[in-house]
């Protein structure tokens, strides 16, 4: 009968799962930014700020990506 509810092995397992989850999330975010940037922003920069068309494109791209991946 275990005195503490989680032994060291389970703690390590939980920690490993959290780490994997974190890596997955970070990878998702990076892929999301790269994909939507390549899709929405023109390569020749005419001004430094995101104009309105790019803003709405990024909104739609992120929303679709999120829905598709979750």
């Amino acid at each position, binding site marked *: 009968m275990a005195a503490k509810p989680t032994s060291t092995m389970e703690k390590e397992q939980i920690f490993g799962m959290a780490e994997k989850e974190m890596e997955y999330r970070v990878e998702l975010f990076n892929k999301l930014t790269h994909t939507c940037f390549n899709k929405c922003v023109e390569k020749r920069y*005419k*001004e430094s700020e995101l104009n*309105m*068309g*790019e*803003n*709405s*494109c990024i909104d739609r791209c992120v929303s679709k990506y999120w829905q598709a991946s979750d």
Partner: protein
Amino acid sequence: MASAEGKNQSAPKQEEKPKIEPLRLPTMEEIRGQDIWNNCAVRSVVSGVMGSGLGLFMGLFLGALDNPIMQEEMTGRQQFIYTAKQMGRRSINSAKAFAVMGLVFSAAECIVEKARAKHDTTNIVVAGCVTGGTISARGGPKAACAGCAGFAAFSVLIEKFFDRHD
């Protein structure tokens, strides 16, 4: 000796590792502040106000250049007041016209760009056509078409001029 060498080896390793800066996402206030300029209503109202200012100045300028209708019985001071009233009336008319132009153009461009999600010259063409059409809609469909084409061409030229200038 070994410990000193170990220390020397560990210090440059720590210096080689690049300092990773944390990701700074914008706060809600920053996002809201930037989103004000993305709002179509705000943009078109600001454009309308700027257009009315421009129209005011242009009307004053052109009214001053206009030939005064001299009536002989009026004294100099009366002529001055009459000319000033003419200038004021003309500048207010011009301000109204330019305000409508700026408002309609900005609103049309904003809506079209938001719908297409692209920053192109076709947004300018459509917005120019809508503006020209509404301004010259009183003359009938032919005048509306001519106004649409003319204003669209004019706006494309102005936009290209500003892009090259920047």
